[in-house]
C-alpha cells in the first residue's frame, strides 16, 4: 500500500520540496547513524584478524596470514553439530513463540484504558532491563535443589519428589524458552503496540458500524496491518539466528555441565574454549562466521518474502 506512493513519478520540483521537508528527519536520524558508523562500520576491517596469526608486535596488518586455520576449531569437533543445532533451533523457536506472544500482548494492551496500559507495559518491560546475572539468580531462587521455591512449595504441595533441576537436561528447553519469553516480551511488543496505535481508528469505527465483532476486527484489520512490521522484525531476527543470548545460555543454567547437551550454543562453546586461550583471532573467526551466515540468511529470507509478497520485503 505504502509503496505505491513512492512509485509515482515525481517532478524535480516536487522531489526537491520532499527532500527539504525530510531534512529534520535526517537530522533526527544522525546520532543513530553516527553510532552505527562508529560501532559497526569502523571495526569492520578487523575482520582480517580472523585470517591472521596475530602478534601484538607486528600489529593487525603486519601479522602473518593464517588462512582458515582459525576457523578449524568451529567445525572439526563432534560438538559442532550440537552447538549449531542448539543455536538455530532455539532461535527458531524464540522467533515463533516471541512473535506470537508479543503480538498477542500488544493487541491486549492496545485494548486497555490508557492508565492501566501504562502500568502493565512498565511491569512487563521490567525483566528486559535486568541483567542476565540477576535473572539467573531469580531462576535459581525457583529451581535450587535445596532451597528452591518449586521444590519446596509447588512440588511439595502435590507430593512430588524434589527434582535436581540443574542436573536434568530434559526440562531445560522449556525453561529457557519460557525465561527468554518472560524477559523479552515487554520489549518485543513495544514496536507492535506502536504500530497498532498508529492504525487509523476510522477502520475500527466503520467495522463496528457494520457489525464486526472484536475478533473480526482483530483478524481482519489489526493483523493484516501489522503484517509488514511482523515480517520486518522477523527478518531482523533471522539475521541473528547464528548468535545466541550469551547470558541466557551461560548464566541462567548456572554453567552446569549436565545441561550442556541442551544449553551449549556457538557463543558459549567459543567462550568456554577460549576462556583460557584468550585468542582474539579465534574469537574473531567465530564472529565472522556468525555474521556471514546471518547476512546470507537475511538475504535469502528477504528474497523469499519478495517472491511471496513484494510489498512486505525489506529491500
Amino acid at each position: 500500500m505504502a509503496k505505491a506512493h513512492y512509485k509515482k513519478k515525481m517532478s524535480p520540483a516536487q522531489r526537491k520540496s520532499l527532500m527539504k521537508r525530510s531534512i529534520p528527519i535526517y537530522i533526527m536520524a544522525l546520532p543513530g547513524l553516527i553510532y552505527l558508523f562508529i560501532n559497526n562500520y569502523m571495526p569492520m576491517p578487523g575482520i582480517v584478524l580472523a585470517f591472521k596469526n596475530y602478534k601484538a608486535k607486528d600489529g593487525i596488518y603486519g601479522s602473518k596470514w593464517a588462512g582458515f586455520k582459525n576457523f578449524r576449531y568451529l567445525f572439526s569437533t563432534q560438538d559442532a553439530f550440537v552447538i549449531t543445532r542448539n543455536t538455530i533451533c532455539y532461535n527458531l523457536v524464540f522467533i515463533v513463540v516471541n512473535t506470537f506472544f508479543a503480538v498477542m500482548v500488544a493487541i491486549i494492551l492496545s485494548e486497555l484504558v490508557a492508565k492501566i496500559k501504562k502500568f502493565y507495559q512498565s511491569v512487563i518491560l521490567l525483566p528486559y532491563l535486568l541483567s542476565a546475572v540477576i535473572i539467573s539468580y531469580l531462576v535459581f531462587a525457583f529451581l535450587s535443589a535445596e532451597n528452591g521455591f518449586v521444590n519446596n512449595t509447588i512440588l511439595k504441595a502435590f507430593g512430588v519428589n524434589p527434582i535436581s533441576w540443574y542436573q536434568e537436561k530434559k526440562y531445560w528447553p522449556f525453561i529457557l524458552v519460557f525465561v527468554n519469553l518472560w524477559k523479552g516480551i515487554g520489549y518485543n511488543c513495544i514496536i507492535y503496540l506502536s504500530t497498532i496505535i498508529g492504525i487509523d481508528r476510522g477502520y475500527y469505527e466503520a467495522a463496528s458500524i457494520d457489525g464486526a465483532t472484536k475478533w473480526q476486527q482483530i483478524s481482519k484489520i489489526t493483523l493484516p496491518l501489522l503484517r509488514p512490521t511482523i515480517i520486518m522484525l522477523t527478518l531482523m531476527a533471522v539475521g541473528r539466528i547464528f548468535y545466541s543470548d550469551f547470558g541466557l545460555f551461560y548464566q541462567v543454567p548456572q554453567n552446569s555441565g549436565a545441561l550442556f547437551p541442551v544449553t551449549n550454543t556457538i557463543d558459549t562453546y567459543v567462550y568456554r574454549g577460549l576462556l583460557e586461550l584468550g585468542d582474539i583471532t579465534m574469537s574473531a573467526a567465530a564472529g565472522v562466521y556468525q555474521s556471514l551466515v546471518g547476512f546470507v540468511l537475511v538475504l535469502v529470507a528477504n528474497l523469499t518474502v519478495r517472491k511471496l509478497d513484494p510489498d512486505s520485503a525489506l529491500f
Partner: protein
Amino acid sequence: MRKKILSLLLIAALSLGMTTGLTISASADQLEKADDGTAAQEAAQERIESGDYPTIVMAFMTWAGKLVGTDRISEKISEITREKIGVNVELMPMDSASYAQNMNLILASGEQVDLFNVVTLGMMACVNKGYLLDLEEDDLLATYGQGIIDAFNTVELGGCRVAGTLYGIPVKKDDAAGRFGMSIPVEYLDAIGFDYASMYANEEDEIIYTDFETIEDILGRLHEQYPDKTTFYMDPTSIIGQCLLIDSPNDNFGVLLDPANSLVIEDLFSSDLYMDLCSRMYRWNQNGWISPDAITETNATTTQVKAGSLCAYKTATKPGIRQQESNLCGKPVVIFQLGEDFKASNTYLNMPWAINQNCEDPVAAMQLLNLFYTDPDISTLICWGEEGKEWKETGDGHITFMDGVDAQNSEYYNNVNWQMPNQFIARIWEGDSLDLWERMQAYNDNAVTSKAMGFTFDNSDLAAEYTAMTNVYSEYSHQLELGFLDPEVGIPELVDRLKAAGLEDYMAEKQAQLDAWAEANGVE
C-alpha cells in the same frame, strides 16, 4: 532506491556486529644500549637531573577492583622512586573477574601499561601473542636488575623461561602447594568432641598430617551433629590441581602421573588416581555430605564457613595457611593435610611480572621492578598500604590494622600479596610468625619437585583440539569431581569423548615437546 540502500546497509550492520578493538600501534621502541656496571646509576641520575620523570603504569589483579586508597599509595611509592631512580609509579589494580579480558585488550590495543602480572592471562598465550618483552635483550636484566638476580637462584629464574627466553620475573611466594588440605573450624571439631590437639607431630606445627579414614570419620560425625549445614564442599575449578600429586603442563589433557621420577605424559582421566578421587567424592555425596546445590554454588568456601552454612572444605596448604584461612573464615580453623607438598613445573610461570613489549622506557620499568624486589618500604606499601592510614606497629615487630580500620573499610587491603613482586621483604602482619619467610623458603626447598620444572607446553597448533576437549571436560568435571555422577559410568564416557576430541594427538604433541625440552636442558 535510497531507502533500499539504507535498509541494506542497516541489515549489513546488524548482521556484522563486530566488536573488535582496532587501534594497534605495536612498534617496540629501541632499547637503550647498556654499557657497564654503572649504567643503572647513570640512567637513574640522568632522569633525576632532567626532572622529567616517566610514569610507569603497573597492573595487577585484585578481588575488589581499584580500592579508594590506590592513588594515595601510588603517590607514596612514587615519593620513594622519584628520589631513588627518577620514576613515577601508577598502580592499576583490576578486578579478578575482568583482569584477563581487560589486560588482553590493553596489550592488544597499545594502551599504556608498562609492568604487569601475567596471572590468569597465561604465560604461553602472552608469549605467543608477542605481548612480552625479552628481559635479557641488550642485557636489560643484567644491567638494570641486579637486585632481582640476587633475589633468586638460577632454578627459580630458569623456571620462568619459555623456550630459553626470559619473559618474566617470578614473584617471591610459596612455590610448592600441599595437596589435599582440609580446613575445619575449631568450634565444629570441639562440638563433636574430636581431639585434634594431640595430633600435631610437633608442638609448633600448624598442619596435621593425617589419612582419609580419619577425615571421613570427622565428616561423618559433623554430618550427624549439623544436619542443616553442608558437611563438605570444594571449589570445583581447583580440584585436580589441589588434590592430586600430578604435574599438568599447561592443562590436564596429558599429565605426569609420577612427576618426581618420570617424564612420561599419561592420560589422567583413565588413571586409577582420578577414579579413586571421583569414587571417593561419589561416596561422600551419597552420604549426604555434599550439598545437592554444590554444582551451582557460587560463594567461596570461606564465605560459606563465615556464614555458618559449611563445616569443612579443601584447600591447598603452605606455611601461614592456618592464619590465612582463619582470617578468611572469621573463626579459627584446624588444617589437616592428606597429600604431599609438591612443586609443579609451572610454579614460576603462574604469575610472573613482565614488561609490555610496547613499553616506551624498558630501562625505567626494569629499574622500578628491581626496586620492588629490593626495597622493603616499597614492598610494604604495595602489600599492606601506608603506615598511620592502613596499618600501625604492634610493638613486637608485627604490623596490624589501624584503630577503627578493618578488612572491610580499609582503603587499601587487597589481599593479593602473593602476587606482589617480593612479599618476603615486606612487614609481617599480626598473627603470622615473624620467621614466616624463613619457613617459607625452607618449605619451598624441601617440597617434592617436578622433573619437568620449567617446561611449558605450547598448544597453539592444537587450539581446535584444546577447545573441543575443554568443552567436553567442563561438561563432566563438576559432576564427577563433586560426586554427582557415578564414576563407573561417567569416566568411561568422558574418556571416550576426550579421545574423539583429539586427546591422543594432543598428548603425543605434549610428549614430543617435553622430550625436546628434556634433551635441550639435559634432564634424564
